[in-house]
């Protein structure tokens, strides 16, 4: 399919703009003007519509079919929340309005959304205060690390290290490093699939600023020793960070706040059903316990005695601005709508069904694939292509073969500590029929791995392109169309 710029026809127009209705009094002086026009497309509206419709047909989304991408919580995204976000009272609202004098009164509906979302998240996570400013999960992690740094700085303690389990998502060590910390990786006990407590005890000390945990962890296992870890952390005033990537497993079953976590982030685009958009936008609100609240980013939303909402910037210990305004508002709006529609009981059922679906897949596949930790999993399960690798069929081959079966592959080669890992997260919105179809495909692939491995290596065959040459991509660096 041609690049859109190749379709361009000189002098063709896609939009008619209103004629200028004011007298033209001045021109931009020549010295400030670009020499040559930017060579953007020249296309009709229909040309553009056809191009992007064709592109969309080369894409696969949750609406296409099952998308069991582990760690990503690819659940169904309700259509009504799109309609809500498009309401003009929200979509056309300028973010500087509430910063005008008495401007808070101009945006009461929007401030209510954010305030109420923060309140609900506090209850869901068991935290004391939330900020909705972080614009993605990793941005929430960075915010959390900045809060921890500010807390220790305020106390005058010099703490330089963050401890992170080796099974953690890559964003964890990256966020901690970018906030200025030294990162140390804590090994996982490979027998239990849990953080190695003995190793943790030997690594923690006065230099430890915090520990980042994902619970359930990326193996899909709930760490029941969390109280011990929290006690150990707090003995050194290290702050315990909860990565909410796997929150979909535990709604109404476990609240990080109750287990003494000090900071959490949640991914609204995972647990609270906002669309992933092909790589964003997301939102990563951060919750804290009381002792960290003074450090939260500004602005914060507070209520006045007359029950109206106001933006408040008067927090002298705050880490300051981390977003231009109030976070990804339209994402927060969708998540708030989703939570209101689910209600407390609905959220509990979300997690129950997500966990049931994951266990159902794991038990249905345990005779066909190696399951490194064959015990009750939470919302996702990790299976391994270790046995298939003996026939030189690897996780990547299975992933590509699944594509030909009509499914999006699971996350492969993660977590890093499991060889040939395939991380499957079905989510609660998938039906038994869909799961059965996926299980059937996996079983057929397991047989093919033994009997016709060559065919699997040639997968996928049903897609617009086959396996792509990534080495060539990195070498040629064709990242901008030059034609």
């Amino acid at each position, binding site marked *: 399919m041609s690049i859109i710029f190749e379709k361009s026809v000189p002098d063709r127009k896609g939009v008619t703009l209103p004629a200028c209705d004011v007298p033209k009094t001045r021109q931009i002086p020549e010295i400030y003007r670009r020499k040559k026009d930017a060579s*953007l497309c020249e296309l009709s509206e229909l040309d553009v519509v056809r191009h992007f419709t064709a592109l969309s047909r080369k894409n696969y989304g949750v609406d296409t079919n099952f998308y069991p991408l582990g760690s990503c919580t690819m659940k169904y995204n309700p259509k009504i929340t799109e309609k809500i976000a498009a309401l003009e009272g929200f979509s056309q609202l300028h973010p500087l309005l509430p910063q005008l004098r008495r401007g808070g009164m101009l945006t009461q509906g929007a401030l209510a959304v954010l305030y109420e979302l923060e309140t609900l998240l506090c209850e869901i996570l068991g935290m004391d205060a939330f900020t909705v400013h972080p614009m993605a999960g990793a941005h929430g992690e960075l915010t959390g690390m900045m809060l921890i740094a500010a807390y220790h700085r305020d106390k005058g303690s010099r703490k330089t290290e963050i401890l992170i389990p080796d099974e953690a998502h890559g964003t964890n060590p990256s966020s901690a490093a970018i906030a200025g910390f030294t990162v140390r990786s804590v090994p996982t006990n490979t027998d239990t699939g849990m953080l190695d407590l003995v190793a943790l005890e030997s690594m923690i000390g006065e230099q430890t600023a915090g520990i980042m945990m994902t619970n359930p962890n990326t193996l899909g296992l709930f760490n029941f020793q969390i109280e011990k870890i929290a006690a150990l952390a707090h003995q050194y005033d290290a702050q315990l960070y909860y990565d909410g990537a796997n929150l979909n497993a535990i709604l109404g079953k476990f609240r990080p706040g109750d287990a003494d976590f000090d900071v959490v982030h949640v991914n609204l685009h995972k647990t609270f059903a906002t669309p992933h958009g092909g790589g*964003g936008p997301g939102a990563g609100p951060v919750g804290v316990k009381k002792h960290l609240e003074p450090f939260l980013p500004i602005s914060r939303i507070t209520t006045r005695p007359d029950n109206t909402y106001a933006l408040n910037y008067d927090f002298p210990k705050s880490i*300051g601005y981390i977003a231009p305004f109030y976070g990804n508002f339209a994402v927060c709006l969708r998540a708030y709508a989703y939570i209101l529609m*689910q209600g407390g009981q609905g959220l509990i059922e979300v997690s129950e069904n997500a966990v049931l679906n994951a266990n159902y897949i794991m038990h249905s596949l345990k005779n066909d694939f190696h399951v490194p930790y064959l015990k009750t999993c939470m919302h996702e399960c990790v299976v391994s292509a270790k046995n298939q690798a003996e026939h030189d069929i690897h996780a990547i081959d299975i992933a590509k073969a699944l594509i030909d079966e009509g499914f999006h592959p699971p996350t492969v080669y993660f977590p890093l500590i499991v060889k040939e890992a395939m991380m499957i997260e079905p989510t609660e919105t998938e039906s*038994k029929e869909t799961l059965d179809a996926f299980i059937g495909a996996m079983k057929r692939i397991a047989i093919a791995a033994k009997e016709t491995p060559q065919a699997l290596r040639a997968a996928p065959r049903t897609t617009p*392109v086959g*396996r792509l040459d990534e080495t060539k991509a990195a070498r040629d660096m064709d990242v901008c169309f030059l034609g």
Partner: protein
Amino acid sequence: MSYIANTESQRREMLKVCGVRSIHDLFADIPERLRPKSFSLPQGKSEFEAFAHFEKLAGQNYAHLTCFVGGGFYDHFIPAAVDALASRSEFYTAYTPYQPELSQGTLQAIYEYQTGICRLTGLDVANASLYDGGTALYEACQMAIHATGRRKVIMDGGVNPIYRKMIRSYTANLSIEFVETPVTHGLKASKESNDFDSVTGQSDRKRLFEALDDRTAAVLLQNPNFFGVIDDHSDIVKKAHDLGIIAIQSVYPVALSLLKTPAEQGFDIATGEGQSLGIPLSFGGPYLGFMAAKKALVRKMPGRIAARTVDMSGRSGFVLSLQAREQHIRREKATSNICTNEALCALRAHLYLSLLGKEGLKTVAQLCFDKAHYAKERIKAIPYVKVMESSPTFNEFTVKLPIDAGECVGRMVELGFAAGFPLGRYYEGMENYLLVAVTEKRTKYEIGRLAEALEAVVCQ
């Protein structure tokens, strides 16, 4: 409203396969004493009830005010086709394109978007997106610090004050030295004016040149600057390059269709807020941070980059490339921690640029310029009101009022206008100054009404 498909009898069958009797058994690993101390949430609502609730909330917002507020975030026209195509769920319900065979739509769109950003800025490479214009500028700063091994950054006072605050927050725990230089005075010397205390002009060369030295990693400039002033920073870039400093410009993409490009001025990196390219204001987000750079810096860039390659049969296709820079491979040594970015907003920007096209974007920019200058003339005619104009401006300009700008704007709201942004909020001593933005959406009639209302308010 539940989106769960399985029925009670299906759940029973599935539990049997799992070898447990009830769903509660699946949560046995969570000790009883760690169960929620409370989980007090409202009862779920139907779709119908929820929509009614949000219609009510939306109605409490003054989105209908005639908007002359900008500050880097503008009320531009968005063609209907942008919404229609970005609403195709093959795009918006997809994940980051890690499986390229299933994501050629997203990947080709990113590649084309990168191309569009390169063509607007004149630079060689662009990434797939960052959160917003502020974080994009911060990431550019980090690139410069890593590329030069230096830890001093010069920020021009014309850079959006919100972005300068953000950069300060992000670097609070890192030892980086900042120097901020104010821009030049915004009123011509004249007999009747004593306004030399107000700084709303171009970048102050003298102070900038004093601040640049061989310990400096980066110099951050903005064009048009926060006061709407147009500049040509070529001389500053040249001086910076002589000292081995990376020059970074934050830009307004609509203006770039007419203005000298960052590349023409010699900049190494350009960043900006892409909201004006077909993304609704939505009370502050989601927006779009874009970044383009010289090719030599590509391996230092943050975020996703799509590249064109071939498949096993030689067919052209697209992948995410140079992933070895990124957090999921490189962990604590990654160039940035960014994972989820603003892909759908980048798609909207690409749609917008494709529809507006070469002439359309220039027309939008010219309309903005012409209407803003008409507004200037109208406002200049109001007694006691001065327009700051020592330098050319694009679609935004500063006005000095005889009264407190915040108070003035408050009264203008009652007359149906969001009349501008009072600068006193970010600039000490500028309580009487108002920043007025005009886009192609504003009509001659609306501008005239604004001037009349402003006159009524200040002359009261």
